[in-house]
């Protein structure tokens, strides 16, 4: 994978616990608020959605775009972050 951000590295380094949704790579203030508005207030809730979508990239990207209007880069960052976290801890 191309270079990952510090946020990504921080997130995949440890169990996510109660981290807020803005801790996810690709999810900043604006997207975070939109997600929280839809009920996804913690990172683990987005993780739940990621898992329910069977960790499929296309589905997750579509869902993220629909839910918080993430652009392609943000979708990719978030997906990559969650995927790597799952690979390490799930």
């Amino acid at each position, binding site marked *: 994978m191309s270079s990952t951000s510090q946020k990504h590295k921080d997130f995949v380094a440890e169990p996510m616990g109660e981290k807020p949704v803005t801790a996810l790579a690709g999810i900043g203030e604006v997207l975070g608020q939109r997600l929280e508005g839809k009920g996804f207030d913690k990172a683990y809730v987005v993780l*739940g959605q990621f898992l329910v979508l069977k960790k499929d990239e296309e589905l997750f990207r579509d869902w993220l775009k629909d839910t918080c209007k993430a652009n392609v880069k943000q979708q990719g960052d978030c997906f990559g972050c969650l995927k790597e976290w799952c690979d390490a801890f799930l």
Partner: protein
Amino acid sequence: MSSLRSKSAQDISDLLDEYGIKHGPVVDSTRSLYERKLKEAMAKGKPSKPSSDKTYYREEEEVTYEYRTPVRSEGAGDRQSYSSYSRSKPEYRGQNSVDEPYMYDTPSTYRNSFMNSTPMKSPDAPKTPKSSRLIPLWVQFAFFLAVAVFLYLVFSSMETNESLKGIE
């Protein structure tokens, strides 16, 4: 198609399978995504609903009846024509774009549709004599001849001028 909202989760799941859309469980949080995907898939007009990737030939007989009910009354051999319809449907698209430069194809499709007594390409049922052409063939020939004659006249009139010698 009735509203997707009113369908059960199992129905949505079945529809997704029919359209060949990869999906997970249909739960509250995923439902709207899958409904949107189904709407897009339906809008694309995917012909095969009961069977997505199987061959079209026999299974779609029943769907034929629903889909082509208005046309069916026009001809008797709907089974044969539908199978050739669905088979030729992808070909139709290819043929349609190819038909434009290659006009020899037209008489055969015209003859075929005439023989089946049901046009192979149902959208062109009202236009069978013109066999899926926006501009009739004879009009195209006439236009071509007219343009050729015009160019000839122009060229021949140019020849009498000094300008042609100048070009040489």
